[in-house]
Protein backbone atom coordinates (compact mmCIF):
# COMPACT_ATOMS: atom_id res chain seq x y z
CA UNK A 1 0.00 0.00 0.00
CA UNK A 2 1.34 3.40 -0.99
CA UNK A 3 0.55 6.80 0.47
CA UNK A 4 0.91 10.54 -0.11
CA UNK A 5 1.80 11.46 3.46
CA UNK A 6 5.20 12.95 2.64
CA UNK A 7 3.80 14.97 -0.24
CA UNK A 8 0.96 16.41 1.85
CA UNK A 9 3.20 17.02 4.83
CA UNK A 10 5.43 19.14 2.65
CA UNK A 11 2.39 20.97 1.27
CA UNK A 12 1.26 22.00 4.77
CA UNK A 13 4.82 22.48 6.05
CA UNK A 14 4.52 19.80 8.73
CA UNK A 15 7.44 17.82 10.07
CA UNK A 16 7.04 14.14 10.94
CA UNK A 17 7.18 15.21 14.57
CA UNK A 18 4.35 17.71 14.11
CA UNK A 19 2.16 15.16 12.38
CA UNK A 20 2.92 12.50 15.00
CA UNK A 21 2.01 14.90 17.79
CA UNK A 22 -1.24 15.91 16.10
CA UNK A 23 -2.20 12.30 15.38
CA UNK A 24 -1.30 11.22 18.94
CA UNK A 25 1.33 8.66 17.94
CA UNK A 26 5.09 8.26 18.22
CA UNK A 27 7.41 9.68 15.57
CA UNK A 28 8.53 6.23 14.49
CA UNK A 29 4.95 5.36 13.57
CA UNK A 30 4.76 8.26 11.10
CA UNK A 31 8.21 7.38 9.74
CA UNK A 32 7.21 3.78 9.11
CA UNK A 33 3.81 4.84 7.76
CA UNK A 34 5.46 7.09 5.18
CA UNK A 35 7.84 4.35 4.12
CA UNK A 36 4.91 2.00 3.64
CA UNK A 37 6.30 -0.30 6.32
CA UNK A 38 3.29 -0.03 8.61
CA UNK A 39 -0.41 -0.51 7.91
CA UNK A 40 -2.36 1.86 10.15
CA UNK A 41 -5.61 1.06 11.87
CA UNK A 42 -8.71 2.74 10.45
CA UNK A 43 -8.68 5.11 13.40
CA UNK A 44 -5.09 6.22 12.78
CA UNK A 45 -5.61 6.45 9.02
CA UNK A 46 -8.58 8.71 9.67
CA UNK A 47 -6.62 10.92 12.11
CA UNK A 48 -3.69 11.32 9.72
CA UNK A 49 -6.00 12.05 6.78
CA UNK A 50 -7.84 14.65 8.89
CA UNK A 51 -4.59 16.39 9.87
CA UNK A 52 -3.52 16.44 6.22
CA UNK A 53 -6.92 17.83 5.22
CA UNK A 54 -7.76 14.94 2.94
CA UNK A 55 -9.65 11.64 2.92
CA UNK A 56 -8.35 8.12 3.57
CA UNK A 57 -9.02 7.19 -0.08
CA UNK A 58 -6.94 10.13 -1.31
CA UNK A 59 -4.14 9.49 1.15
CA UNK A 60 -3.67 5.72 0.89
CA UNK A 61 -3.86 3.68 -2.29
CA UNK A 62 -2.84 0.36 -3.72
CA UNK A 63 -0.59 0.19 -6.77
Amino acid at each position, binding site marked *: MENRIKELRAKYDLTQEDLARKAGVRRE*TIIYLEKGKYNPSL*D*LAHKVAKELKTTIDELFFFD
Partner: protein
Amino acid sequence: MNDKIRFIIRVLLTITLVAGFGPWAFMVIKEGRIMEGAGIAIVALIIAGLALVLLKSSYTEIKKGFPLQDERSKKLTTKSAAYAFYIGLYWLLVIMYYSDLAPRLGRSAPTVDQALSAGIAGMSILFGLSYLYLNRKGEE
Protein backbone atom coordinates in the same frame (compact mmCIF):
# COMPACT_ATOMS: atom_id res chain seq x y z
CA MET B 1 -3.48 4.79 32.30
CA ASN B 2 -1.65 8.11 32.22
CA ASP B 3 1.75 8.08 30.45
CA LYS B 4 3.50 9.66 33.46
CA ILE B 5 2.16 6.95 35.76
CA ARG B 6 3.21 4.31 33.25
CA PHE B 7 6.71 5.81 33.15
CA ILE B 8 6.99 5.86 36.94
CA ILE B 9 5.92 2.19 37.05
CA ARG B 10 8.64 1.35 34.51
CA VAL B 11 11.25 3.14 36.63
CA LEU B 12 10.12 1.33 39.79
CA LEU B 13 10.13 -2.06 38.06
CA THR B 14 13.61 -1.42 36.69
CA ILE B 15 14.94 -0.41 40.10
CA THR B 16 13.36 -3.52 41.68
CA LEU B 17 14.84 -5.79 39.02
CA VAL B 18 18.36 -4.34 39.19
CA ALA B 19 18.27 -4.11 43.00
CA GLY B 20 17.29 -7.79 43.15
CA PHE B 21 20.51 -8.77 41.44
CA GLY B 22 22.60 -7.13 44.19
CA PRO B 23 21.72 -9.45 47.10
CA TRP B 24 21.72 -12.42 44.72
CA ALA B 25 25.28 -11.70 43.50
CA PHE B 26 26.36 -11.08 47.11
CA MET B 27 24.92 -14.44 48.29
CA VAL B 28 26.51 -16.35 45.42
CA ILE B 29 29.94 -14.76 46.06
CA LYS B 30 29.56 -15.47 49.80
CA GLU B 31 29.05 -19.17 48.92
CA GLY B 32 32.44 -19.11 47.22
CA ARG B 33 31.11 -19.06 43.63
CA ILE B 34 33.09 -15.97 42.67
CA MET B 35 32.86 -16.30 38.88
CA GLU B 36 29.12 -16.90 38.98
CA GLY B 37 28.62 -13.94 41.32
CA ALA B 38 30.70 -11.72 39.08
CA GLY B 39 28.64 -12.87 36.11
CA ILE B 40 25.42 -11.95 37.89
CA ALA B 41 26.84 -8.52 38.79
CA ILE B 42 27.88 -7.92 35.17
CA VAL B 43 24.43 -8.90 33.90
CA ALA B 44 22.89 -6.50 36.43
CA LEU B 45 25.13 -3.68 35.20
CA ILE B 46 24.27 -4.37 31.55
CA ILE B 47 20.54 -4.40 32.35
CA ALA B 48 20.91 -1.19 34.37
CA GLY B 49 22.81 0.48 31.50
CA LEU B 50 20.25 -0.54 28.87
CA ALA B 51 17.38 0.43 31.14
CA LEU B 52 18.89 3.88 31.71
CA VAL B 53 19.17 4.50 27.98
CA LEU B 54 15.59 3.34 27.33
CA LEU B 55 14.13 5.23 30.28
CA LYS B 56 15.95 8.42 29.29
CA SER B 57 14.59 8.09 25.76
CA SER B 58 11.06 7.47 27.09
CA TYR B 59 11.32 10.51 29.37
CA THR B 60 12.46 12.72 26.48
CA GLU B 61 9.53 11.52 24.38
CA ILE B 62 7.00 12.27 27.14
CA LYS B 63 8.52 15.73 27.65
CA LYS B 64 8.10 16.46 23.93
CA GLY B 65 4.44 15.49 24.14
CA PHE B 66 4.61 12.08 22.48
CA PRO B 67 2.82 9.06 23.94
CA LEU B 68 4.83 6.32 25.65
CA GLN B 69 3.02 3.70 23.58
CA ASP B 70 0.89 3.81 20.49
CA GLU B 71 -0.82 1.23 18.28
CA ARG B 72 2.39 0.34 16.46
CA SER B 73 4.53 -0.08 19.58
CA LYS B 74 1.79 -2.18 21.23
CA LYS B 75 1.57 -4.38 18.12
CA LEU B 76 5.36 -4.77 18.07
CA THR B 77 5.47 -5.70 21.77
CA THR B 78 2.73 -8.31 21.34
CA LYS B 79 4.36 -9.87 18.27
CA SER B 80 7.80 -9.89 19.92
CA ALA B 81 6.36 -11.60 22.99
CA ALA B 82 4.77 -14.24 20.76
CA TYR B 83 8.07 -14.87 18.94
CA ALA B 84 9.92 -15.05 22.27
CA PHE B 85 7.40 -17.57 23.56
CA TYR B 86 7.43 -19.87 20.52
CA ILE B 87 11.21 -19.81 20.00
CA GLY B 88 11.70 -19.88 23.78
CA LEU B 89 9.94 -23.26 23.94
CA TYR B 90 12.71 -24.70 21.76
CA TRP B 91 15.32 -23.01 23.94
CA LEU B 92 13.82 -24.69 27.01
CA LEU B 93 14.01 -28.04 25.18
CA VAL B 94 17.71 -27.37 24.51
CA ILE B 95 18.28 -26.68 28.22
CA MET B 96 16.45 -29.90 29.16
CA TYR B 97 18.48 -31.87 26.62
CA TYR B 98 21.72 -30.38 27.92
CA SER B 99 20.74 -31.22 31.52
CA ASP B 100 20.34 -34.81 30.44
CA LEU B 101 23.47 -34.91 28.28
CA ALA B 102 25.89 -33.09 30.66
CA PRO B 103 26.61 -36.07 33.00
CA ARG B 104 27.39 -38.26 29.98
CA LEU B 105 29.95 -35.66 28.87
CA GLY B 106 31.61 -35.70 32.27
CA ARG B 107 30.09 -32.38 33.35
CA SER B 108 27.74 -31.68 36.19
CA ALA B 109 24.15 -31.11 35.19
CA PRO B 110 22.90 -27.56 35.75
CA THR B 111 21.01 -26.99 38.98
CA VAL B 112 17.34 -25.99 38.89
CA ASP B 113 18.38 -22.37 39.60
CA GLN B 114 20.86 -22.35 36.74
CA ALA B 115 18.42 -23.96 34.30
CA LEU B 116 15.67 -21.52 35.26
CA SER B 117 18.02 -18.54 34.98
CA ALA B 118 19.20 -19.67 31.57
CA GLY B 119 15.60 -20.15 30.45
CA ILE B 120 14.46 -16.73 31.62
CA ALA B 121 17.56 -14.98 30.31
CA GLY B 122 17.15 -16.72 26.94
CA MET B 123 13.52 -15.69 26.59
CA SER B 124 14.34 -12.10 27.55
CA ILE B 125 17.09 -11.94 24.95
CA LEU B 126 14.75 -13.50 22.38
CA PHE B 127 12.16 -10.84 23.15
CA GLY B 128 14.70 -8.06 22.67
CA LEU B 129 16.04 -9.53 19.42
CA SER B 130 12.52 -10.13 18.09
CA TYR B 131 11.57 -6.54 18.87
CA LEU B 132 14.62 -5.19 17.04
CA TYR B 133 14.05 -7.49 14.06
CA LEU B 134 10.31 -6.74 13.74
CA ASN B 135 10.90 -3.01 14.24
CA ARG B 136 13.40 -2.92 11.39
CA LYS B 137 11.45 -5.24 9.11
CA GLY B 138 8.10 -3.44 9.36
CA GLU B 139 4.92 -4.82 7.83
CA GLU B 140 5.60 -5.48 4.15
